[in-house]
């Protein structure tokens, strides 16, 4: 009897593990009844492609959430880093090097954030908020408020090349996210992110370099923000001071919907991708569903709020 109950519990736990994907697929099918264009392959591809931006930002955010911190600078990095890459290209750096520079700038901002947060004990909310403000300001100065277009063709290939009917960007996204999942699950540093988020005091007592792990989390967040910014600029064909700003709230909401604890130590990155696509779906549906332009933000926020509410109730009820 006891073992039967245990087995039932185990099965329930397994099916609940990827709950966010079930939720995403369920909502996709359900809203498809009202917005039939969702079932057209082109629309589906569109969701896949557009979701990569919030997906990459959310994965980066998830890494800092795992250690119990937050990174508000992600969207500023997403415009600052590719801006730095493009400016370097304009003064003669070859495109591959400019892309590499973009990623390094992202990692560098993360390193700087991480150092200040761990060594000077500045709360991450404050530090990354200041960083967000500063970087957005720098981009504004550098562009004089204009969108920077005329990017080189090879820069934009990621957003323009198709493999069969599927854009290269989707494959790129799958590879990058897989790397992130393997990093978090299967490497020493990745597991330590969870342990530090769970109980940093116990970690340092057991000789885990807690500060270094936290810094790595911020560097990873910076890297993914830069990747998101690069991919977005490759798709849109320009960089501007504000072009990723609208994705900050979705990038925070997606990991939360995916069940990442804001206090750290818990969460599955595969679900974060589903959370990101869920938020993206809401955004697209609200636009396609004929909601007036003025109400976009409210309706999107409301739906994300409901998704978080449903998830919270689910976790209370199932105890998972």
């Amino acid at each position, binding site marked *: 009897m006891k073992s039967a109950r245990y087995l039932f519990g185990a099965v329930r736990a397994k099916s609940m593990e990827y709950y966010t994907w079930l939720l995403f697929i369920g909502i996709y099918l359900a809203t498809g009844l009202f917005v039939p264009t969702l079932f057209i392959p082109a629309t589906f591809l569109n969701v896949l492609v557009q979701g990569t931006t919030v997906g990459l930002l959310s994965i980066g955010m998830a890494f800092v959430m795992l250690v119990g911190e937050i990174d508000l600078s992600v969207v500023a990095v997403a415009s600052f880093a590719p801006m730095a890459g493009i400016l370097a290209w304009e003064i003669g750096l070859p495109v591959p090097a400019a892309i590499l520079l973009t990623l390094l700038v992202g990692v560098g901002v993360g390193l700087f954030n991480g150092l200040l947060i761990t060594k000077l004990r500045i709360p991450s909310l404050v530090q990354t908020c200041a960083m967000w403000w500063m970087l957005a300001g720098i981009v504004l100065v550098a562009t004089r408020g204009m969108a920077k277009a005329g990017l080189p063709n090879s820069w934009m290939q990621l957003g323009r090349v198709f493999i069969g009917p599927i854009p290269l960007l989707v494959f790129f996204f799958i590879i990058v996210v897989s790397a992130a999942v393997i990093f978090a699950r*299967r490497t020493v540093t990745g597991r330590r992110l969870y342990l530090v988020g769970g*109980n940093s005091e116990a970690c340092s007592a057991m000789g885990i370099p807690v500060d270094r792990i936290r810094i790595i989390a911020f560097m990873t967040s910076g890297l993914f923000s830069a990747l998101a910014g690069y991919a977005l600029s490759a798709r849109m064909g320009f960089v501007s001071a504000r072009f990723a700003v609208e994705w900050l709230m979705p990038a925070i909401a997606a990991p939360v919907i995916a069940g990442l604890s804001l206090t750290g130590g818990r969460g599955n990155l595969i679900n974060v991708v589903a959370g990101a696509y869920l938020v993206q779906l809401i955004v697209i549906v609200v636009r396609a569903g004929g909601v007036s332009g003025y109400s976009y933000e409210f309706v999107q926020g409301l739906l994300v709020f409901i998704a978080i509410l449903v998830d919270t109730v689910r976790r209370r009820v199932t105890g998972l």
Partner: protein
Amino acid sequence: MRCNFCEDYQDRGPNMKKAGPILQVTGLSKNFGTLRALSNISFELAGGKILGLVGDNGAGRSTLLRILSGGLQPSGGQIYLEGKATRFKSPADAMKKGIAITYQFSQLVDIAKVWENFFMGRELTKRIGPLAFLDVQKMKHLAAGAIAKYGHTFDVEREARELSGGQRRLLAISRAIQANPKIFLMDEPTHGLSKRVINEIFDLLRKTKEASDTSIIITAQWYEQVCDFVDEVIVLRRGEVVGHFDAESADGGQVFKLAMGLTP
């Protein structure tokens, strides 16, 4: 260190008992601002011996243990490890030099699994090409084996928060033993546990001591909690050593009076 856990474990056999003191502390002191937490602490610990540190609250037991495990820096005095002057710069540094510690409140990550807790800080990896990945199967297997060896059968896939108080303590202790330390520090391991669990833990420690040359320092508020177990006892009161006995000559009543500051 991380990858050769097993070899490491087999390396130190039962025939390695050493004679000289493994740890020597001379004139150790610690001030917190104007508060003198420890003053002029000196003692020696021989290899394979068990030393009890007994004292009332505020006697300095925990402070001393924290200094010996790299959690605090002393204000004065010297520590010699195997005859060499040593300073433990951090908990990680102390661990590297062969010190293990368990605290009164087990340092476990509640929301991590038993095997993750068991191997935290010294995870096992296997290489695939140039990359090192966690060897999860091996860690689960070894953690389950270690726990079974100590007479327990709880599932290593459970989260630490699901364990009972005794199981948690046992997990923390078996984790420390598995690192095969030269010196094992235990801050009030008996606190808040039933007599049965305490006996179980002491049995486990005795077996460990027989199988290797690990020295143990154990703190307790009352001598009776550890009198069956220790080879010698140091009595601390207000940061000073007020008595040092071997187990044969130690007398519970006398230790109590010294620890409480009553004239013997």
